[in-house]
């Protein structure tokens, strides 16, 4: 259909636009077939026109319906994409453009278009950049997973907050007090929650080995279900399945501040020696961390919530900033495969750095030396969607 319209346009160009009506309807690409673009030639008496009304004839309908208007007489393009008058892929629509003069009367129509149907695409070409990036990330991960199997290059730089985990759990053991672990306040939809669960496994195992108690309050019931299994499993791995008390991991409330009220109360009453806040947090970050300060607990936090990082940094002893939270499971386990994935992340970072610097230099050279903004358009074409 698209080709037909293209031929139509070519035909009109060859004919000088005189034979048929000059209204061209084209499919808007890269969508679900929900939009059409209509263009028309401006009439000779533009000076007498105040606006255009765009009418559409739907298949099976008897009358044209008004789908929109263009209030500038010098504009000759309209995109029909209005949820009130939806278009459907595969059905044909006919358009009519009617100019309106300054006394609000409709004058003679500019004619009608050919019947055109919108097309639903199987691939959105505007997103080809995201696709390439996704494929690249995939490839990098798989490459480094295989590389990791050779056992080479397992170095990870020091992450102070994670080194302190051992000491923090040890302190709780010495004091005979529990460890409090809050796996964030979000659901599984935040990948930070998954990262936190990956850290919880080794931490719970260590706690079980030290014969200490771990308390894990939960806000989301699905997270609760998963966390419960993870902690139970860790006790099993540590060889102390009988020490696991099912109420150690519990559900509190889905209401954000009700959860905080309960956790703050718990901190005041149980006085955990160590508080670990890892995952996704919102405004409650400081409410919990300050209460933990009052009870004198050693606190380690980690989140990818940029707005809450400043509060954790001020109120906790150690804070994992953003990506450090995601690198934690590799750091703690030193599992070659997980370390490999951290290496893949580093490669991606290096490429991003290179792109940022190289694009800046090239576009500056282009602008300053050759006075052209062409490269800037290339950049925005690459990174926008």
């Amino acid at each position, binding site marked *: 259909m698209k080709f037909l319209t293209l031929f139509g346009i070519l035909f009109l160009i060859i004919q000088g636009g005189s034979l048929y009506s000059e209204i061209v309807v084209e499919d808007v690409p890269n969508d679900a077939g929900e939009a059409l673009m209509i263009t028309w030639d401006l009439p000779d008496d533009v000076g007498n026109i105040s606006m255009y009304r765009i009418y559409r004839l739907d298949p099976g309908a008897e009358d044209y319906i008004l789908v929109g208007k263009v209030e500038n007489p010098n504009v000759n393009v309209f995109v029909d994409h209005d949820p009130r008058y939806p278009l459907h892929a595969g059905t044909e629509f006919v358009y009519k453009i009617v100019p309106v003069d300054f006394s609000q009367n409709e004058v003679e129509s500019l004619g009608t278009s050919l019947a055109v149907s919108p097309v639903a695409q199987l691939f*959105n070409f505007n997103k080809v950049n995201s696709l390439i990036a996704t494929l690249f990330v995939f490839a990098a991960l798989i490459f480094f997973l295989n590389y990791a199997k050779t056992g080479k290059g397992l170095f990870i730089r020091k992450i102070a907050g994670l080194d302190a985990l051992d000491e923090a759990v040890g302190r709780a053991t010495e004091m005979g007090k529990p460890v409090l672990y809050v796996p964030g306040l979000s659901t599984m939809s935040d990948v930070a929650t*998954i*990262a936190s669960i990956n850290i919880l496994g080794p931490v719970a195992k260590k706690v079980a080995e030290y014969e200490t108690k771990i308390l894990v309050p939960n806000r989301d019931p699905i997270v609760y279900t998963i966390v419960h299994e993870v902690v139970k499993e860790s006790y099993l791995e540590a060889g102390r399945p009988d020490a696991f008390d099912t109420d150690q991991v519990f559900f509190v409330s889905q209401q954000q501040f009700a959860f905080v009220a309960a956790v703050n109360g718990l901190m005041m009453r149980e006085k955990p020696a160590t508080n670990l806040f890892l995952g996704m947090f919102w405004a409650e970050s400081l409410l919990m961390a300050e209460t933990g300060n009052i009870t004198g607990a050693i606190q380690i936090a980690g989140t990818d919530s*940029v707005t809450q990082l400043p*509060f954790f940094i001020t109120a906790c002893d150690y804070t994992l900033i953003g990506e450090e*939270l*995601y690198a934690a499971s590799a750091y703690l386990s030193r599992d070659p495969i997980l370390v490999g994935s951290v290496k893949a992340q580093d490669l991606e970072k290096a490429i991003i750095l290179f792109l940022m610097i190289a694009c800046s230099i090239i576009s500056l050279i282009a602008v300053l030396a050759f006075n052209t903004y062409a490269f800037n358009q290339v950049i925005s074409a690459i990174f926008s969607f």
Partner: protein
Amino acid sequence: MLFKRTLPLLVVFVLGIAMMIQYFIPHPISQSFKEGADNWIRIIGAFAIVLGLASFFHVHTRKIMRKNKDSIFSVVAIVSLIGMALIGILGKDGLDNWLFSNLYSYIIVPLDATMFSLLSFYIASAAFKAFKARNAMAFALLVTAIIVMLGRVSFGSFLNGLVEWIMVYPNTAAQRGILIGIGLGIIATSLKIILGIERSYLGGE
């Protein structure tokens, strides 16, 4: 083993890849697949609350059984839960029931807002206790915080330009750096889950 581990991992893989691919396909079939998946997740998630409730009742009945001075509060929690739920479910007009909405507006809303407002006390005490110029970087943090706070009060408007500059340049720069790192972390963690490399969430064998 097949049903306990292999097939669930396969489900994660297939669904993960499918959700990724649908993002690139604007066709209505792909759109309705996404809508269907959204609905499924909503329905499946609704059942998990029952496990949450079981945990809630288990914890609190045990506290009541223990019969110490705090047992009474567990009674409060259970009674208010059951009361609120019954009024909301059985009450006339459903969620618009006057008692249900009054309980919401005069119990939950003020408690929520007051808990939230505790932050204004804690933000002050955290600043006092933690903003100490222990080293050059801590000094940088506390000086910026003071400048920005001064710029926000009525007679600090001479600092407006500086505050805006801090927010727009150094602040944005650091946030961008952190955000890019987080993006890579999210992608890597998601891929590890999809590929079955990280599987601790499934529990043991």
